[in-house]
Each structure stands twice: as structure tokens, then as C-alpha cells.
């Protein structure tokens, strides 16, 4: 993220984009503790733009430290959330290893509707792949009250419940499809340890956790 912030400091860069990046960086610093103004300026290499953010009412600067205003807080939370959701999507579903740069572009590009859809799709994940918390969105609070996540990895569902396969990723697709395990098929997880055992119709198969992570299902 640090590297990217520098890149985005190009002259003539969109102001909103810059402010998003700044807010995201501030949010991240705040997770670790205090937000020192000089540290932010050093990272983003733009003193006047930081001061401009104060004029825009996004941040407050006091005793050399930066605080988020309620408006800034909301924006920072949103942008961080989109970034971390994007990371989850790239890692879990698309199985990418190099995803950081794309996650950074992605966070600016998606609408709140898409953000919500992704969050629901991923089952309202609490943390990004690096283990940092993903700020909760509106959809998440509804979820905790009434609905369960739409799509989960087979590795994460509880034993004994039937589930419908939504999609399968990874190199094992061929083998799984040979025994009839394709999207639409109904499977039941029998156990998770010492190996995963799942039932599909009258067939039981044992697979590794890695494989179970590549099978995405919806509880029915």
C-alpha cells in the first residue's frame, strides 16, 4: 500500500483519489495507534493536500496529530472496507497471489451496490487476508441479525448439513466433476478431521482441506 501511495502522487492526480488514499493510510495508522501528521505527509509527499483535507472537513489536525472527522471516518471506513473486500475476493475466489495493485485500483472503481454484493457473496468476512479487520458495512449488520452468508467454502460449513455446490475452483475440478460434483450438485459434509469426507448422492469421498476450500457451496 505504501508503494502505491507514492505512485498515486503523480501531478494532476484526481483530488478525490488522493483523498481516498490518504484516508485509507490514516485509517491504517490509526489501527496501530496514533496518527502523526509528519508521518502522513512524509508518506504521501504532499503537505498542502493534507491541509486541504482539513479545510474540506475530513480531518482535524491537533498537536501534530491527525484525527478523522465523522465524515472522514465514514469515507475512510468505506475505502478500507472496499480494499480489504477486494483482497478477499482475489485471494479466496480467484486464487491470485499477486493481487495488491489490483485491489488498490478496485477499491476506487466499485459502487456501494457491488461492494455489498461482494461482501454478501463472500459471506461477510471479518478479516482481510493479512488478518486486519474489514470495517462492517450495512449488509453485514443485517446479516448478523437475519440471514446467513450466501456462499461459503465447503471447508467452513458445519458438518451434517446438506449444501448445494455453487462453483468450484482449483486444479481438481476435473476429478470432482468425474464423480458428478459440479455446480448444482448437493453435497453433505460428513467430517472435517482427520480428512474431509463428503457425500454426494450414494458416493462418499475423502479430500484434503485445500480441495474443500476450493468448493463453494450454499447451505440449503
Amino acid at each position: 500500500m505504501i508503494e502505491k501511495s507514492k505512485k498515486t502522487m503523480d501531478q494532476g492526480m484526481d483530488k478525490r483519489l488522493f483523498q481516498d488514499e490518504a484516508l485509507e493510510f490514516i485509517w491504517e495508522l490509526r489501527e496501530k495507534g496514533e496518527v502523526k501528521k509528519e508521518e502522513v505527509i512524509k508518506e504521501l509527499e504532499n503537505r498542502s493536500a493534507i491541509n486541504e483535507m482539513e479545510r474540506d472537513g475530513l480531518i482535524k489536525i491537533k498537536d501534530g496529530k491527525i484525527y478523522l472527522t465523522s465524515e472522514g471516518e465514514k469515507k475512510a471506513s468505506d475505502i478500507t472496507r472496499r480494499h480489504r473486500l477486494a483482497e478477499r475476493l482475489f485471494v479466496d475466489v480467484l486464487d491470485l497471489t499477486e493481487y495488491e495493485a489490483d485491489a488498490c485500483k478496485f477499491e476506487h472503481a466499485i459502487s456501494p451496490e457491488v461492494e455489498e454484493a461482494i461482501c454478501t457473496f463472500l459471506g461477510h468476512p471479518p478479516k482481510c487476508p493479512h488478518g486486519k479487520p474489514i470495517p462492517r458495512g450495512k449488509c453485514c449488520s443485517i446479516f448478523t441479525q437475519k440471514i446467513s452468508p450466501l456462499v461459503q467454502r465447503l471447508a467452513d460449513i458445519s458438518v451434517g448439513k446438506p449444501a448445494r455446490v455453487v462453483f468450484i475452483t482449483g486444479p481438481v475440478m476435473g476429478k470432482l466433476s468425474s464423480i458428478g460434483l459440479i455446480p448444482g450438485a448437493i453435497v453433505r459434509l460428513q467430517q472435517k478431521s482427520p480428512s474431509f469426507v463428503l457425500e454426494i448422492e450414494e458416493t462418499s469421498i475423502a479430500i484434503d482441506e485445500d480441495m474443500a476450500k476450493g468448493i463453494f457451496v450454499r447451505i440449503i
Partner: protein
Amino acid sequence: MHEHRTKKIKGQYERVILIGNPNVGKSAIFGLLTGKYATVSNYPGTTVEVSYGNMSLDGKRFLIVDTPGVNNLIPMSEDERVTRDILLTEKPVAIVQVSDAKNLKRTLMLTLQLGEMGVPLILNLNMKDEARDRGLTIDTKKLEEILGIRTITTIATQRKGINNLKEAIHGPRIPITKIGYDPLIESQIEVITALLPEANISRRSIALMILSGDESLKDWLNTNMSAEEIKNLEEIKDSTQARFSTPVSYLINEARIKAAEGIGKRVLKRSHPKGSNLAPFIGRMSMHPLWGIPILILVLYGIYQFVGIFGAGTLVNLMEKAVFGKYLNPWAVKIVNALLPVTFLQELLTGEYGIISMAITYAIGIILPITTTFFIAFAILEDSGYLPRLAIMANRIFKVMGLNGKAVLPMVLGLGCDTMATMTTRILETKRERIITTFLLALAVPCSAQLGVILGMLAPISGKATLIWAGSVFATVLLAGFLASKVIPGDKAEFFLEIPPIRLPQTMNVIVKTIGRVEWYLKEAVPLFILGTLFLFFLNKLNILIYIERFASPIVVEFLGLPAKATESFILGFLRRDYGAAGLLALSEGGMLTPLQVVVSLVTITLFVPCLANFFMIIKERGMRVALLMAGIIFPFAFLVGGVLNFALRALEIQF
């Protein structure tokens, strides 16, 4: 195309090929059709080699071909490739698809593929009893109408429906299949079909294999088409794939599954299961993370009691001491002395290194009872369906060695016979796993005969001695496996194993299988025993043995701390490790080994070079270079571990 098929190839019977998903009873059906036994077990992948047998039907003779199980005729594994290649190269008069009646969808997926190939087919729904117990009824009349082929239900284990099946072999038909793929795929099929040469199976089915990116088809393509044409096909395949985000092979499979489901819905009725819940319950418990462990211990204890105590103890005592010691050998000595007044010949047959007094006594007196009891226990394990569950329990440990739970099957079989087990490594998917497993079998898995002798020697000393021996061997397996997995290149294989239902083993099958294996074992072992004895006899006669013992003394006496005479056992060990162990047993019975020496010598002989038969099997399966390399590593490694153990035990002053 059809005329070609029925045309009889000169001097050969018309062929009937058995094809089907894994573990549906192809070998059982094969046995019933031909009267010839092929190994039948309750786990997928038992048949690793194609078997042939004859069947007479109304005065006509057919050659029946049993094939390894397949889930897909676009091969995902070596056995699937073997079967698919048979379809490519053979021109059978009929194909019998043997199937599991309770898994109709998977059955039909294969039927549809065979239909696409345009081969004459009969569908056999086997295991009707299990389907019925689960409340599944199939409307075979309707299924026959839909597919346009004869559909015969059987229960192979009860010999039910076999005559109907035989009679149906007279009237195979090409199944009616109407699978519509994505329009783009369909158009590409047309393009490819026009480029392909005439083949034993339909060009459409070959086109689908090519579009699926079937690498295993390369050999066939290379022999039937020019490099340029193949390149052209590759380009068509790549350009097709480029237009889909999902692998084309997957889209093709998906269409087939959908079609199979469609048919399944029309013919399958579900009602409440009628069968007992006991077998499924045992099945679940035996792979349960918690209960699985006591069950495993119970199973091991049972095997130990049956093979170790009853086989290696009671039966060996009876055979070796009573039958051979009191009757056969004294008689043999009398007869030989009476008939052959030549001292040299007398010694050759009944002397210290005599063929009868040493080789035959070992083979029949010691080895036979142990092997027989082990193979009975193993057959029961196999047929009950416990072994795949053991694979689940052991998966994590095997991961350390770059393997997965699937390797449990050859490793446990190795406790019966390493040579057989080396052949069974074919059920493993990657070459890397096969090499590692073959290596571990050759290094450290004692076969039943050796195991029996070893346990027989350790038991009188103490439980501690047994534990130290077992611990050393086990630690060596783990360490060697771990190192091998670091050295041998290749990807780790994903664990993917079908779990068969728990079944009550059929007594007849257990007996037949055990006899078959014991026979194989004796055929393999006895000649080597005789050869080894002759070898020792001449070494002794020519006084070379003394020199070898002196020459090996720094290693055997200094490093391993054993008496010089133990060298003889190691020489025997070159031919067979169990024979070497039997030699040690004789030494130990003669009071020439201390408990510590027993443990050290047994660990060394356990890790010693694989027997000649196993060595030849390694050459056959893995090639000369790999076999020599393995032997070259194992030989010094065995002495190294033995030596280290010797010093460790002495340094720690362990008492037995």
C-alpha cells in the same frame, strides 16, 4: 464402422470388454463370466492390470477383458488411461458396462460417453441388493427404451443374474445418446471431426477428447496423424478454450452430467431405506477423528493376535518344531542317507545348509503359516472396506513423507509382500508418489514372513525390545520419506479417495484371494530360498564364507557389534530379507545373540536391501536406473541406522 468390429481377427476369439466406475464389481463379474479369479476387493483401484479370461457361450468362445475402473473416459489418472487406450486400440464385439446400481448418475455419465464413442454396449446394473437396501429402484424397462440397449441387473456376490448377462452378450447395441454441448463447442467438434482419420471409436468422441485438452491422447495422435495436422488440432483446441473462461473439459463434463441427471430422473425412484444401519455406523466411526483411533488400535491388536501370536507363534511352532523338527527332517535324513550314499549330496540336501533342512524348512515351516495368516487378515481388511478409512486416518502422517493417505494401501499390502505392493503403487496418481512409496517399501516395510520371524524373535525378549525395533523402523520410514519428498521433484498430490461402504467380507472370496496370494508368494520365495541355500552351501564348502565374514567384520562386528556369523544372515538377506531374518533367528535360538544384538541385527535386516523379486519388480515398474539407485542408497543406509542404534543403545545402557 460396425462391420469392422464384428469381423473376427484371425486366430483370436472375439473380445468382450468389461468397463465401469471404480469399485463396482467388474472383477467379480469377470470371475463369474470366465471362472477365472481376478482379485476382488472393496476398494477402488484394485485392478491395476488388465486381465484376460475365456468364456464359452452357446458353443462360441469369447475373450473377456477386465479393465481398471474409470470415472471418465477423458483420463484423469493412469488407470483411466489404460482403459481408454483399450477402447482406442481394441475392436470388441461387445462392451459390458458394469455399474453400481446405487450410483445411477455416475453410471450414466459413463454410458453416455460410451454411446458417444459408438461402441456396442450392454449395461449391467450390479449391486442391486445395496441399491434396494437404500431404497433405490430403477425402472430398467424404461432405461432400456431411453438408451436403446439391454440393461441387466445382477448381484455378483450372490451370483444372481449372471446367466441373463451372459445371454445378453449376444445382442449388444450402440446406445442412443443425445448430448448437446455449447453451440461453439459443437461447431468445433465438426471442424475437428473432418480432420481426424478413421478410428475404432467415433471421431466425435475423439474430437471431444482433443477439445478437453486430453494430453494422454498424444501417443495415439502421433501414430495416426502428421505433426502438422496435430499442430493444427492444438490450435483449434487453444482457440476454443480462449473463448471460454471455464476449462472446456469442465463444460463438456457438465453437459454430460446434466444429460445423465435428466435420464436418472426419469427412471429412478427413491423410497425409505430398508437396510440395517449397523454397517454405515461402523463405517462412520472407523474414520471418526476420535473413535477412529481406538478402532484402529483394536484392528491392529486383532491382526497382531491372529498373525503374530497365532500364525507366527502357534502355527510356526507346530510346523517348524513338530512337523519338520520331529518328523519330516529326521525322515528326510534317513531317506537321503539310505538312497544317496554320497556325503556331498547328503549335505546338499539335509546338511547345515541343506535344501531340505534349511530352505524347505524355512519356506514351509516358518514362512507359510505367517504369510497365510497375514493374507487372510489382509483380505478381510480389504473386503470390509476398512483400508480406505485407514487412509483417512493416516493422511496427515503420510503428508510428512510427501504422500497422502492413499499410499496406505500399498504400504499395508507391503506388510504382506513388498513385491505385490510395489506393483500396487500404480494406484497412486503421480510418479513422485510412486517413487517415494516404492522406495519406502524397499527400505523399511518388512513383508509378512520377515515380520513374523522378527516378532517371533522379539517377543521372548521384552515388549521394550519390540517397541525399540518398531520405533526405529517407524522413525526411519518417516525420516527417509521426509528426505525423499525433499529430494524427489514434482508436485504434491491432492488426496482424493472414494470411500466404499463397509461390507461383510465374503468367506469364499477371502479364501480364494488368500490362496492366490500365498501361491504367488511361495512361487516367488521358494526358488530364491533354494538358490540362497545353494549359494551358502557352496560358499561354505569352498571356505569362502570365512573370508567374507572376515572382510565384512569391520562393519558387522565393529560397527554393528554383532558376531561374525551374522554375516551369513546378511548374505541371505541379499536374496530375501525374511530369509536373512530366519538366519538370525537360528543364531538367536543357538544363544549366539544378546538381546541388544537381536534388536540391532533385526533393525538392520528390516532396512536391508529389498529381496530379488522385489528388486526385479522395481526394475519393471520404475526402470533399472531408479532400481539401482534405490539399492545403492538402501544398502549403506541400513548399516548406518543399525550402527547408530548399536552405539545409542550401548551409550544409553539400555537394558532389555
